[in-house]
C-alpha cells in the first residue's frame, strides 16, 4: 500500500506537470471537454424536462397515477362498469398520511346538444376541489368559473367544443347518456365555465359536471366509475400502489399509470436510451481532440519516455502515468462542465417560455413552457461515460508510449 502511494505520488506529480507544460493546448482541450460536458447535461436537462412535462400531461389526462375501477371499465367505459365509493379498509388506506390527493370520478360517454349542434363527448363527474391536483383544468378556465361543489348544477366545456356547438358561456345545453338499466338520462345544464385545452385532440371533448349531480342524473348514487390517486412524484408510487392493491375490494381493479398507458411508460425507457446515445455522440466528437492531445503529448516527449524507461520505470507505470494525465484532464473538464451546466440550468428550472413553437409542442403532448430538469442520474451518466470512454481513448497513446524502444527514444531529437 505504501509502495502504491509512492508510485501514485510519482505518477501524479509527473502527470500534473506534464499537463501544464503546454498551457495553450491543455486549455483548449479543457475548453472542449467542458463545453462538451455542459452540452451533454444541458441538452439532457431540456429533453428530460420536455419528457417529464409530456408524462405529467399524459398522466393528468388518464387521469391519476393510480386508478381503481371496475375490471371491465378500461375496455368498456360504460355506466354499468362502476364500483362503490371507497369505504372500510380502502378508505383507511386512501386517507393514510403521505398521499397527496385522491378523488372519485364518474366517466361516461354522452351526447351534448346545443340549440344548433350536437356532439359525442365524455361526461366527467368530478369533485371540484380535487380537480386542480388531478387534471389542472380549473387553472385553464378562460371564461366564467370552474365547478364549485359536488352538487353544482353547471357544466364546464372546452372553448373549441363551444365554438363547434355554436354556444357560449351562460347558455343552456342538454346532456344525454344512459343509466345502468339502459334508460336514457337527460338534463339541461347551464355552461358556467369555458376552458382552453392544452392537448386539443385529447381533452377537447371532455365535459365537466359535479359528481353528485351526475350520480343523481345517471341513478348510480353511492357508486363511481373510478377512484384516482395522485402523489408528488409519478416515478415513486410503487409502495403506494402495493398498499392500495392490498386494500382494494373484490370486484375492483387497481392499475398504475404505466399499466394503463404503456406508451407513456415506454417514453421513460426511450428517453434513457436517447440520453445515452446523445452523450456518446458528443463524446465521440470530443474523443478525437482528446486522443490527438495525448498523441501529441506523447510524441513531444518520446526522449523523456525513453529516459524514464532507462531509469527503470516499468511499462505498466508508463501506461498508468499517461492514463493519469488523461484522467486529470478529464476530471478538470468535468468539474468545469458540471458547474457550467448547473449554473445555466438552475435559473431556467422556473420555466423557459417556448410559446413560439407551442403548436408543435402541443402536438407532442408538451406545453409551451419548458421546465429543464437537472437530475443527478443524468449528470452521473454523462460523467461516467466521459470518464470511461475518455480513459479507453487514452489507452492507445499510453500503450504506444510504453512500447517505445528506449534506445531509439533516447536518440530522438
Amino acid at each position: 500500500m505504501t509502495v502504491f502511494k509512492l508510485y501514485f505520488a510519482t505518477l501524479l506529480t509527473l502527470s500534473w506537470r506534464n499537463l501544464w507544460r503546454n498551457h495553450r493546448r491543455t486549455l483548449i482541450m479543457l475548453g472542449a471537454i467542458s463545453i462538451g460536458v455542459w452540452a451533454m447535461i444541458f441538452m439532457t436537462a431540456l429533453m428530460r424536462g420536455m419528457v417529464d412535462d409530456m408524462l405529467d400531461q399524459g398522466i393528468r389526462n388518464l387521469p391519476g397515477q393510480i386508478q381503481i375501477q371496475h375490471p371491465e371499465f378500461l375496455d368498456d367505459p360504460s355506466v354499468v362498469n362502476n364500483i362503490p365509493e371507497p369505504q372500510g379498509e380502502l378508505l383507511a388506506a386512501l386517507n393514510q398520511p403521505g398521499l397527496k390527493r385522491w378523488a372519485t370520478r364518474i366517466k361516461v360517454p354522452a351526447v351534448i346538444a346545443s340549440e344548433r349542434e350536437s356532439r359525442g363527448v365524455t361526461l366527467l363527474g368530478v369533485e371540484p376541489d380535487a380537480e386542480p391536483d388531478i387534471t389542472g383544468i380549473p387553472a385553464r378556465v378562460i371564461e366564467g368559473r370552474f365547478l364549485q361543489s359536488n352538487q353544482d348544477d353547471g357544466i364546464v366545456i372546452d372553448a373549441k367544443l363551444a365554438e363547434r356547438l355554436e354556444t357560449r358561456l351562460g347558455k343552456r345545453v342538454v346532456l344525454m347518456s344512459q343509466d345502468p338499466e339502459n334508460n336514457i338520462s337527460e338534463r339541461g345544464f347551464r355552461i358556467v365555465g369555458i376552458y382552453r385545452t392544452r392537448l386539443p385532440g385529447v381533452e377537447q371533448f371532455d365535459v365537466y359536471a359535479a359528481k353528485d349531480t351526475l350520480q343523481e342524473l345517471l341513478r348510480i348514487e353511492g357508486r363511481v366509475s373510478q377512484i384516482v390517486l395522485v402523489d408528488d412524484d409519478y416515478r415513486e408510487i410503487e409502495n403506494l400502489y402495493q398498499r392500495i392493491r392490498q386494500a382494494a375490494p373484490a370486484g375492483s381493479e387497481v392499475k398504475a399509470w404505466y399499466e394503463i398507458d404503456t406508451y407513456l411508460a415506454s417514453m421513460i425507457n426511450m428517453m434513457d436510451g436517447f440520453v445515452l446515445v446523445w452523450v456518446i455522440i458528443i463524446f465521440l466528437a470530443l474523443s478525437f481532440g482528446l486522443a490527438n492531445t495525448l498523441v501529441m503529448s506523447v510524441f513531444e516527449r518520446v526522449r523523456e519516455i525513453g529516459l524514464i524507461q532507462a531509469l527503470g520505470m516499468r511499462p505498466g507505470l508508463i501506461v498508468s502515468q499517461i492514463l493519469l494525465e488523461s484522467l486529470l484532464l478529464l476530471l478538470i473538464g468535468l468539474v468545469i462542465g458540471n458547474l457550467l451546466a448547473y449554473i445555466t440550468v438552475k435559473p431556467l428550472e422556473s420555466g423557459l417560455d417556448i410559446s413560439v413553437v407551442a403548436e408543435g409542442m402541443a402536438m407532442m403532448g408538451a406545453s409551451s413552457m419548458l421546465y429543464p430538469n437537472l437530475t443527478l442520474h443524468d449528470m452521473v451518466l454523462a460523467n461516467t461515460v466521459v470518464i470511461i470512454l475518455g480513459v479507453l481513448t487514452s489507452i492507445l497513446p499510453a500503450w504506444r508510449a510504453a512500447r517505445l524502444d528506449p534506445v531509439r527514444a533516447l536518440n530522438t531529437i
Partner: protein
Amino acid sequence: MSAIHCHQLCKTFRQGDEVITGLDQVDIDIDAGEFVCLSGPSGSGKTTLLNAIGGLDTPDSGEIRMGDMRIDQLDRGALADMRLRHIGFVFQAYNLIPVLSAQENVEFVMQVQGVPAVERARKARAILEEVGLDGMEDRRPAQLSGGQQQRVAVARAIVSQPDLVLADEPTANLDSVSSEHLMGLFSELNRHHRITFVIATHDKRVMSYARRLIKMRDGKIISDAPQ
C-alpha cells in the same frame, strides 16, 4: 552482483539495404569496483555495448550476465527492474526530466524504488551537495548550465548506490573545467563507494582516469589493458 560477463555478443543494425555491425563477437569480463573506459572512433560499438550491458538493447546473439542474472533473456519489465535496482545511467545529453526540479530529478529513481519521502529527500540533498549543487535543489533543468545539469544526472545515477554506472560520453557537452570536476567525482565515487564505472568516450582526458582501457573498432575489441 556487479561482475559483468559478456560472451560472443553480436548485434547488427539495418540502415536501408545496408547491414551495419554494432558488436562482433565481443567477449568481456568486468569485475566489481573496476573503473573501465571504452574508447574508439564513432561507430566502433561503444554505445551499443553499453546499451546491451544496461539492458536497453538486446543482442542478436551471445550472452550477458550480471552476477547470476542473464540480462539478454529478461523481459521488458524485468529489465526495467534490473536497471532500477542495479544500474545508474549518465548520458551525453544530460537527459533530465524537464518538469521536475533538480532535487526531484535526483529523487525520481528512489521514488520509483519505493524509498520513503523523508529518506529520499535527505539522500537527494546530500548527494546534490556532494556534486556541488547545494542551494540549487529547486531549480528546473532549464535554469541550470550544461555542467550543472550533468552533475544532477550524475547525482541521479549514483544516489541509490547502484552496483554499476554506465556513462556514455558524459563529458562531450562540458567545458574542460566541468569535465575535470566530473571525472574527479567519478573517481572518488569509485574509490569510496566501490561503484563499478563503465564509461564510453573518445576523450583522452577521460581515459586518463580509467584503470582499465578497452579499445574498440568496427564492433570488436581490439585491445583490453590496465593502465
